[in-house]
């Protein structure tokens, strides 16, 4: 009796994890490919939002909670809003539909499928990573402080370069979007 009770919870955790994974994975992949096949730029932005949300769910499943939060706040809540602003500012009303011919679409899908097949082939034929020990953190693991230490420790140069990059981007975007004097 005790053995059965001890076995059942473990299996159901696995099942719940698998169910959540398939949910988020199907959401992400279907939305990603829906972007390819939609002709309306606003619909593509919505499908991108769904893809970003699905990727955030996958990050939660991979024990990267801080990254999932960053993905939702910065990516879905910042970059996607920027894209929607761009869509709004560069369209005449009604929304322009730039149609692509069918043969171009087929060619694009063919190339995408070929790349996918090549990557699948490479993955199946590879030996896989050598150290499959896995990394779940363990008890008392504070991810935010670990990321902070990593950013100020081993990855300090990349952190500083990213900061300089953001400064350059800010100046560049402000310059590009300036209001020019009307002659």
């Amino acid at each position: 009796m005790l053995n059965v009770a001890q076995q059942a919870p473990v299996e159901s955790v696995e099942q719940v994890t698998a169910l959540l994974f398939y949910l988020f994975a199907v959401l992400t992949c279907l939305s990603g490919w829906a972007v390819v096949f939609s002709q309306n730029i606003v619909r593509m932005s919505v499908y991108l939002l769904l893809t970003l949300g699905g990727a955030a769910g996958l990050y939660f499943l991979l024990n990267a909670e801080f990254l999932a939060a960053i993905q939702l706040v910065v990516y879905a809540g910042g970059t996607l809003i920027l894209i929607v602003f761009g869509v709004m500012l560069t369209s005449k009303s009604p929304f322009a539909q730039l149609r692509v011919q069918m043969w171009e679409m087929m060619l694009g899908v063919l190339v995408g499928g070929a790349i996918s097949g090549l990557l699948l082939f490479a993955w199946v034929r590879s030996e896989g990573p050598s150290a499959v020990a896995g990394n779940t953190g363990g008890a008392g693991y504070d991810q935010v402080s670990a990321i902070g230490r990593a950013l100020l420790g081993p990855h300090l140069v990349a952190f500083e370069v990213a900061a300089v990059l953001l400064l350059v981007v800010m100046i560049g975007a402000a310059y590009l979007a300036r209001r020019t004097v009307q002659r």
Partner: protein
Amino acid sequence: MNPLLNIGLTHFMLVSIFLVSAGIATMLTKRNAIGILIGVELVLNAAGVNFVAFNRYAWPGSASGGAAIDGVVFAIFVVVLAAAEAAVALAVFLNFYNNFQSIDVERASGLKG
């Protein structure tokens, strides 16, 4: 049932492969410049999922010690760079729209030939 229930590295690799091929197909088939930007975002997301999946399943940690979260740190850098690149790309597209009154990349043929 076991490979379906036991979520491993291969499952996340499949998601990443799907996303990267979708992103490349989007970059190839869109005439709207913002559509191409959306394709780039898809590819970057696929790379992020790849990084974090390998960090969770196959990264014992670096030689210098510290917590083994280098994959997560790289995925954070990917998010930062994607945001910066989207900002600059949209500034360029806004200028293009102001000059050509269209966001169609077929109109950007000034350097052709």
